[in-house]
């Protein structure tokens, strides 16, 4: 069975697709804008965007006659979830050491 993760790995496994995603980091762009300055043709960029979209790495919205591609923010959920747990644990460790130091200070 092909999982969602497989799609993501496949999508990110290609350097051109990674380059396309990097170009979207600054904000939404059209296919033409993405293809500008890249060594691949516009149809090729469209093909890559299709794969990125299937992997839920990009979204597309119509703005008049343009189709604007952007980074899919829902993909941030997993990162957020991980960071929430990371900071919970890290700050708990900080709290323990800070309170230890404060106790030392009181005893002096």
């Amino acid at each position: 069975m092909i999982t969602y993760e497989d799609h993501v790995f496949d999508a990110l496994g290609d350097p051109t697709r990674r380059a396309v995603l990097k170009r979207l980091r600054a904000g939404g762009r059209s296919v033409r804008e993405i293809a500008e300055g890249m060594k691949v043709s516009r149809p090729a960029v469209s093909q890559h965007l299709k794969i990125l979209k299937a992997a839920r790495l990009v979204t597309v919205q119509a703005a008049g006659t343009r189709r604007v591609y952007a980074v899919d923010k829902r993909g941030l959920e997993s990162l957020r979830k991980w960071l929430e747990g990371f900071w919970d644990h890290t700050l708990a460790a900080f709290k323990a050491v800070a309170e230890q130091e404060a106790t030392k200070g009181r005893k002096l």
Partner: protein
Amino acid sequence: MTQTRGFDPNTVRKVVSVRAPQMVAWEVFTGKMGAWWPLASYKIGKAPAVDAILEPHVGGRWYEQGDDGSICQWGSVLAWEPPSRLVLSWDIGADWQYDPTLKTEIEVRFIADCSDRTRVELEHRHLDRYGAHRDKMRAIFETEGDWGRVLEAFARTAAA
């Protein structure tokens, strides 16, 4: 920092109340980071990390030090306002390499609650800058699934 500010998908916010005066909280956070940062699991260098260091001025580096003396930079100091406010950039990319263009930001505020308590508010923002990296990052976090458990163990030990 509170829920009333609304939900921002690009930001993670945390608050912790510490039974320590504001100056102690500031000093432990900024000057003794190696004593509490989970270096066993969160580090980027090849060498075992022995310390986490913040250079105490704007523009200072934030880095880990390996047991072989090597230095691996994590980010830099964007604001240094002892004992109440600190802003750091965290520039570690999905490939666990320092990427100075990444610049996610961590703001930490130390608010004196009374003479012996401090409210520490942490905001990790601009997470969208991970953009292209995020799913690769998640893949790393999940394949290194022990990470979460290691952190839990660390927190338990530190709190004991």
